[in-house]
């Protein structure tokens, strides 16, 4: 058996040595990525398809460049597409070595052009799982177990190429599948609200964010708004991630744009289609448009604010207006 990221024993040891003090964890996104994302890391990607994906963090990783990344996620769209696009443009600057995944596409917006590019040209190593499998693998890790039993997808061809094992259940004597835990080196998580110590309040579907985060050695959190600690702890049940697990907190409004962030903004369909269209052209061999996109929106800017600033205000107001999720009262936000 081989582990990607940390083995269960390494993950346990890592936490034993971790500083769990309640301190102000604000830093720049640039500093957080410099500190917590390394070449060869297994990266756990939060969100689900194009909703609440850690786009701001991914853009910063692309600016800095990293090699031989392992991406672990259940279903994702924009985050791996952006990373794959950077690799398509310049594999010496950024490269993905392996993906442990259940689904990589954009649902209503179409399939992923660059998943096809990477796999059909055999540029990455793949390990296919189901959505439940990836979620349960993170869950096993997050509860300190080396594996977790699961009933699906027994009988699928996935089991021929992934690390799942089928055993006879010692209690029922029927076949059952065991999934190895997944402990990423770093989890990339975008949430609606966090406090300066790292407590996070996720709104709407949790996806697998709490499990991915608690499974990882380090956690980078971006949030749409930073709220006062007293506001956060008024509702302890609503804290999705406790501060002592989190390593870096960065307030990045629109940190999951152009995806959907529950209660904040809906998908920017126009921008997603524009980006996806350029990825499709790149798959077919014409990378000029994609390169221009990266130069304009990622390499040519310092942060998400400068990225989003290039779009018309009306386009931004539109995605805020059509967001159907509940607008929670943030209470007092952190002013500076």
């Amino acid at each position, binding site marked *: 058996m081989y582990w990607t990221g940390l083995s269960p024993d390494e993950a346990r040891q890592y936490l034993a040595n971790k500083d769990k003090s309640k301190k102000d964890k604000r830093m720049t996104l640039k500093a957080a990525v410099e500190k917590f994302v390394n070449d060869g890391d297994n990266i756990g990607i939060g969100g689900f398809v194009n909703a609440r994906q850690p786009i701001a963090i991914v853009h910063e990783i692309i600016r800095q460049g990293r090699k031989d990344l392992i991406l672990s996620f259940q279903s994702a769209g924009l985050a791996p597409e952006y990373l794959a696009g950077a690799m398509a443009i310049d594999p010496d600057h950024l490269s993905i070595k392996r993906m442990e995944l259940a689904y990589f596409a954009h649902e209503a917006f179409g399939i992923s052009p660059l998943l096809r590019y990477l796999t*059909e040209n055999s540029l990455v190593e793949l390990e296919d799982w189901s959505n439940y499998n990836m979620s*349960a693998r993170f869950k096993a890790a997050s509860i300190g177990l080396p594996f977790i039993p699961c009933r699906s*997808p027994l*009988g*699928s061809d996935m089991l021929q190429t992934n690390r799942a094992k089928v055993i006879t259940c010692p209690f029922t004597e029927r*076949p059952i599948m065991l999934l190895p835990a997944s402990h990423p080196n770093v989890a990339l998580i975008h949430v609606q609200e966090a406090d300066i110590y790292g407590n996070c309040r996720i709104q709407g*579907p949790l996806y697998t964010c709490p499990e991915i985060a608690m499974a990882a050695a380090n956690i980078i959190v971006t949030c749409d708004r930073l709220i006062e600690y007293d506001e956060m702890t008024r509702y302890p049940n609503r804290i999705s991630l406790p501060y002592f697990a989190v390593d870096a907190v960065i307030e990045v409004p629109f940190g999951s744009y152009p995806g959907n962030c529950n209660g904040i903004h809906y*998908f920017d369909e126009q921008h997603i289609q524009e980006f996806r269209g350029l990825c499709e052209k790149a798959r077919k061999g014409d990378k000029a448009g994609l390169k221009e996109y990266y130069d304009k929106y990622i390499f040519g800017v310092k942060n998400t604010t400068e990225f989003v600033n290039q779009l018309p205000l009306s386009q931004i107001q539109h995605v805020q207006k059509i967001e*159907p999720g509940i607008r929670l009262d943030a209470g007092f936000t952190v002013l500076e």
Partner: protein
Amino acid sequence: MKKEYAKNFTPQEMIVVAGSRTLPDKKVVFAGTGLPMVAITLAQLTHGPGIVPVFEAGAVGPELSRGLPLSVGDSRTTYKANYLLGLNSAFELTQRGYCDFGFIGGAEIDPYGNLNSTMMGTFPDGYQKPKVRLPGSGGASDMACSCEQTIIIMVHEPRRFNEKISYVTSPGFLDGSPNARQKAGLVGKGPYRVITTKAILGFDEETSRMKLLATLPGETPKSVQDATGFELIIPSDVIEFEPPTEEEIRLIREQIDPKGYFVAKKIKE
């Protein structure tokens, strides 16, 4: 009230209507992305107001009246939801036995209802260099395994209906041998219906092979067989499926998917 049948409709609209009518009221239905979401919404608006949709990203039992979700994880799945956590909780409900139907699609299907949504090419040798890479399982294989029954939707073309498929992503009746699912350790009963652009199909109880139940408007048992890459069981009592009503088509076009995200998509040849 006299029923008025629609004069024109797209193949996707026909699938949506057939899918909707297949769903009984007051059942828990795990919804895959795309046409299943449209079909469930149509069922909620017609005969099935008590249907409980489950979305794998976390939302359970919402009202689908804040716009058609473009993703199963989208904010539109959360309106008036009765339970909302994440992927683990949705699949745990399924594994426990709360989900009556899973509603999924695939790129390729075999006579036993096994589905491929992972890759085209040779497996396992060509796994790391597929001819065409598809998005992957997502939650479809989990639904196919652990929902009590599965409803599958397919574009009906010979190249998608094959005796042997490139890759089994979502298990149907596996090799069709007696109790194959049970022996594999699966808990759900397996495929119930296959709804295609040409027909409604089921499965023979003895052989677990696909069986024609009804032809859609404009199709005959022969035209359905001609579009299928393997031999279908064609019993003598195949019926003609009742065409979509004007009201069903109006609901789809005006209320559910007015922008045509899923129902107006061109079927790729």
